[in-house]
C-alpha cells in the first residue's frame, strides 16, 4: 500500500477537531498519526465491492417513542454550567 503521509495536514485536522496542539507536541503527534493512518490503510489491500447499502450495527428498525411531553428539573443541569449570566449560558462570540 502506498503511504499517504503527504496528504495529511495535522494543523487542519486539529482545527477541524477544535483541539489546540502545542508546538512541542506537534511533531510527536504527527508522527504517531501518520504511523496509525498508514496502518489503517492496510484495509485498502482488500478488494471488495463497496456496498453503499448501509451497515447498521442494530438489526432493529422503526424504534420510536410516543409524543408525550415530560419535564425535567432544569436547574440540576444549569448547576453544571461553568459560565452563566442569569439563566443564560455564556459563550465566547463566534467569528
Amino acid at each position, binding site marked *: 500500500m502506498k503511504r499517504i503521509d503527504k496528504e495529511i495536514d495535522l494543523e487542519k485536522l486539529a482545527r477541524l477537531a477544535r483541539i489546540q496542539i502545542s508546538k512541542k507536541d506537534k511533531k510527536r503527534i504527527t508522527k504517531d498519526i501518520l504511523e496509525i493512518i498508514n496502518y489503517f490503510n492496510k484495509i485498502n489491500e482488500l478488494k471488495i465491492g463497496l456496498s453503499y447499502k448501509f451497515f447498521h450495527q442494530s438489526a432493529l428498525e422503526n424504534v420510536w*417513542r410516543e*409524543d408525550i411531553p415530560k419535564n425535567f428539573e432544569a436547574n440540576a443541569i444549569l448547576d453544571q454550567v461553568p459560565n452563566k449570566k*442569569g439563566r443564560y449560558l455564556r459563550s465566547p462570540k463566534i467569528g
Partner: protein
Amino acid sequence: MRELEVKTLSDMSIKIGLEVHCQLTKLKSKLFCPCSSDYRDKEPNTNICPICMGLPGTLPTLNKEALFYALKVCLALNSEPNKRILFFRKNYYYPDLPKNFQITQYDRGGGVPFSSGGVLKLSSGKEIRIRRMNLEEDPAKIFYEGSITSSRYSLIDYNRAGIALLEIVTEPDMSNPKEAREFLERLKGLLEHLEVSEPDLEGAMRCDANISLMDGTRVEIKNISSFKEVEKALNFEIARQKALISKGIKVKRETRHWDEARRITVSLREKEEEEDYRYFPEPDLVPIAINEEMVKQIILTLPELPEKREKRYVKELGLSETLAKVIAYDRDLMKLFEDSLKYCNLPKKIGSWIVNDILAYLNRKNLTLKDLNLDANKLAKLAEYSEEYKVSDKKLKELLNELISGKKNFLEVLKTLKKEELVQKDEVLRIVDSVIKSNSKALEDYRKNKKVLDYFMGKVMEISKGKIDAKEVRNLLKEKIEEIIK
C-alpha cells in the same frame, strides 16, 4: 445602489430556489427527547433535559408523531418518502448545537434524504419542484449582550434546541421574487392546513434563498425573517447582481446576509476553509423503514387538499373560480367559509363577502382574520337575516363593513338591519291607522284601561308578521291613540 430599479425582470433569466425550515409546532414534544415543544415565552433554559442539552451518556429517541407529520407533508407535496431512512450526524462546532453535531439526513455517503421530489403549484398554475425534505433538530437560540457587534459574549437559551424541524428544499424554479413569496405563502397555508405547524409563530418558519442570474453564479441569502422580507431581499439581490453584470464584474459565489434594517444584503466574512461536515450515520438511532401500511394510514388522516377543495367549491357550491381559488388556499379564510356554511346555506354570498369585503379590508389594513371580532356564526346569521329582510345590497355592504371594522358590534348591526326594513315608515303608519280604525270598541276600552294598548300591539304585530321594531310601534300606537281620544 439602493436606487437601482428592477424594471424588467424578464430581460434576464432569473432562477430562485428556496430552503425553508419549518418547525412542526403541533407536536407535543421535541424530536429526540420528551421536552415540551412549546418553548416560546418560557424562562431561558427551563425547557431542557439531559438529552437535548447533550449531556454525556444521553441518547436520542425518535418522536413517532414527528415522523408521521413529516410523512403527511411529503404526501401532500407529492414528495416520495425514501423506503429506508437513516439518520446522519452533521458535525460542526457552534454554541447553539448542544452536541456539536446535528442529527439530520444526508443524500450522499450511503444516505438518502427523508423524501425526494414533489411539487407545489402557484396560482398561475406554474409548478415549483421540491428537491428534497429532511427531518432534523432545531438548534438553540443565541442572544447578545448588547448588540451583535458590540457584545463580547453570546448568551444561549437551549429551550428551542431539539425542536422538530422540517427542511424543505426547492429546485431553482421561481423566476421572480413574487413567485418566491407566493410559494412560501402557499407552503405556509399547506402546513397549517395539515395541522402540523403554526408558521405564524415567531421563528416557526424560516427561509434561506439562492438566486442566480442568466445561469450565472449562485448566491445564497440567509437570515430572512418573513415572506415580505424574502421578496425584498431578492429584489435587492437582483438589482445588485444586475449592476455588477452591467459593469462587467463577475458575481462572486458566496453567502450573503439580509440586513433588514439597512435593506441590503451583505457578504458574510469569507470562510478560511471549506466546511467539512463529516457526515456519518447516527449509531444511536435505528433505520426507519417506510412501508405501504404506514403510508396508507397517513393518507387516511390527510385533510382535503387545497387543489381538490378549489374544484369542489366551483363545481358543487357554484363559486366563481377566482373566489374558489382565494378561499381554498388560505386556511383561515377556508375555515371561516366552511364553518359559516354549517349555519347557513348561502355559499355564494358568504364567499363573496369573505373575499371582496373581509379579505379586502384585511389587506387594506394589514391585518389578519384573528384581529377581527368576527366568527362563522355571526357571518352566517347576517347572511340569513339579510336574505329575510331584503335589505338593499348597498346598505348590506355598509353594515358588513361596519361590522368588520368594529364600528358596530354584531347586535347593533342586527338592530340596524331590522330597522332598515322599517324605513318604509308609511307602511307601518298605514297598519297602525287601520288597526285603530277597525277597533273602535277597543279604543273605548282604552280610556278605562291603558293595558288595552297590548291588544292593539298584538294586532299590529300580527299584520306586520313581527317584522317591525316593537318598541317603536308601541310608542307610535300610544301617540296616535292618545291623540284620538283627547
